């Protein structure tokens, strides 16, 4: 049984900033973001580091910093999700798996932390039992209960953080960057936890910059570019030559993977506050139209996907090849996405490539 859990429509998040003395400016970090998630489904939001993905998680939970402003509409189980409702259901129905061990109180023992606030002694006892059960399942021994966060290893900390989400039987779990800094085995383990949750009919929103992780676990993938969602594709579309992908950025991203073509595209994502008036991908697009430079395309539904591109229908029908870059341009161009998006071996490859091009006097 699949029910629509969360629908996020056209939300924007911006920060009030002081620039040049007392002049205030609004820095838009997330623009016009739309996505939805059903129970038992894993939706990945894929974007580069520092692109503001975590703010999406924080906005759903109503824990944005006070200088951030949020616009747009969210509904949860069909009903409007306003700040008051967020405060009521967060922790119970919607749970967050945070990024790092910094999200644990450094002076509180792990078990107390996982069970969270308890109403009374009885509540505490039953929650402690449940916590033990979850820890058992995740292979965390009894000694871990009495440890402080600083005593946990990276993998243990990750399991503890996942446990915090399970203690209250949530319907929706938001996993914020759960994989960076973990070895392959721990990454696989973490992703298995997410799969397990989805099998238990929990909706999972996976926020990540790890494209491998997203591709291996998610049902749908929302590609985040310069604060916009530019495409929401099904995971099956990321196959072959990417001919089922529609947006040129998504294609380029897919073709930049080592297991595909490992192709590079020039340019970099526009920074927050330097967004062009038109399509955010205009500068780097190989086949822009006149319209693209000044008019922002909206996220349109095409069959069961959503794309933000004027030429989506054309791109969909004839798979436009992406221009190849010569390696001469490598040293003054960024590859698609960011360096952080690559996994370790990819980074090594990239660095070696750069070094060799330097030696060659390019």
């Amino acid at each position, binding site marked *: 049984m699949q029910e629509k859990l969360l629908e996020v429509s056209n939300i924007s998040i911006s920060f009030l900033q002081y620039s040049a003395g007392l002049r205030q400016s609004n820095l838009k970090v997330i623009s016009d973001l739309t996505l939805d998630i059903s129970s038992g489904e894993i939706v990945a939001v894929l974007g580069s580091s520092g692109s503001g993905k975590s703010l999406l998680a924080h906005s759903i939970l109503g824990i944005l910093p006070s200088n951030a402003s949020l616009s747009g509409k969210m509904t949860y189980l069909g009903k409007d999700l306003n700040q008051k409702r967020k405060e009521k259901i967060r922790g119970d129905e919607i749970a967050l798996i*945070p990024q790092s061990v910094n999200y644990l109180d450094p002076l509180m023992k792990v078990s107390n932390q996982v069970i*969270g606030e308890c109403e009374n002694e009885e509540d505490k006892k039953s929650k402690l039992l449940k916590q033990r059960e979850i820890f058992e399942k995740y292979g965390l021994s009894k000694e871990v209960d009495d440890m402080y966060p600083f005593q946990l290893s990276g993998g243990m900390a990750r399991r503890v953080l996942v446990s915090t989400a399970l203690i209250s039987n949530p319907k929706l779990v938001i996993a914020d960057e759960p994989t960076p800094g973990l070895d392959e085995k721990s990454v696989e383990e973490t992703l298995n936890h997410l799969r397990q949750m989805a099998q238990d009919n929990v909706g999972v929103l996976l926020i990540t910059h790890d494209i491998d992780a997203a591709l291996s676990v998610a049902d749908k993938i929302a590609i985040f570019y310069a604060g916009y969602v530019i495409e929401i594709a099904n995971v099956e579309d990321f196959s072959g030559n990417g001919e089922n992908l529609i947006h040129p950025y998504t294609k380029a991203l897919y073709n930049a993977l080592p297991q595909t073509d490992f192709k590079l595209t020039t340019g970099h994502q526009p920074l927050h506050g330097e967004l062009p008036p038109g399509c955010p991908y205009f500068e780097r697009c190989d086949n822009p139209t006149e319209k693209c430079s000044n008019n922002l395309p909206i996220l349109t539904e095409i069959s069961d996907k959503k794309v933000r591109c004027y030429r989506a229908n054309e791109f969909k029908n004839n798979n436009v090849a992406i221009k190849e870059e010569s390696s001469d341009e490598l040293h003054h161009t960024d590859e698609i996405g960011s360096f952080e998006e690559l996994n370790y071996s990819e980074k090594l490859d990239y660095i070696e490539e750069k070094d060799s091009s330097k030696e060659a006097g390019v």
Partner: protein
Amino acid sequence: MNYKTLGKFLTYKFIRLVILIIAVSIISFLLIDLSPIDPVRAYIGEMAVSAEQIAKLQAYWGVNEPLISKITNWVGNILQGDLGTSLIYRTPVVDVISERFTASLTLMFTSWVISGVLGFTLGTLAGMYRGTWIDKTVKGYCYILLAAPTFWIALLFLMVFSVYLGWFPTGLGVPVGKLAADVTIWEWLVRLILPAITLSLLGVAQIAMFTRDKLINVLSSDFVVFAKSRGESGWNLIKRHGIRNILLPAITLQFLSFSELFGGAVLVEQVFSYPGIGQAAVAAGLKSDVPLLLGIVLFSTIFVFCGNAIADLIYKFVDPRIKEGESYEQ
């Protein structure tokens, strides 16, 4: 707790204390020797004496002996527990200090506790309600206190509460003309209130501002954001995560403030004519009572050192991050 580590820590601290005392003794002795303070003159006081008698006294006190032998004599006596005889009180320095310190201890301890509890509470409130009128009031209060000299506040209190309102006596440790044995506890307490409050005030400002700042930091930390995302809020959130994380640093700071406490006591006791160690220090300085002055210097050194050592101890043996961290290494 790990007794072996504790033993090691205490031994190490003790050695530091011995070194510190030796250094402080020598430096303060040198300073007094270089200063125009003349113990012989202080001893003679208002008496009329001939130059011959002065020369005799000087020979008796050893004024003209070389500096090195003066220092060795003095340090040798200290090691035997003899701090000399106070010139103004005409009793052994050790007795003066122990008597005066007992009186001061009550005053300092009371104000230390008041300033700690009050400061911590105010700081927590200000941090919790950051930006509201509560925060602004606490902040304003703290800035004024920090800016105003202690003796001035003491005088102000004396004028308002003792002179105009007549609620408290104007000074002294006990009523005038009463035998020490006849003084009731109430008479003694009522004289303690005003000096204790005055002395607390300075400490309040420091600890309140510190607590406020710490709490604001904690409240904007990732783990509090996460706790909020799990449905925790309000006072429970502050209690579970805020207080837990700011209490230890605040207590540590309070122990580190022993030096200010001592300095404050000197001024406050002077204004309220409270017969404590601070007043004795001022009297010793003004009347060139060298043995007493040096005795108080040594004593206050030990006092402040103890405060700092306790602060270190708390951090090392109470904070789980340091405590457990070390025991896990072993």
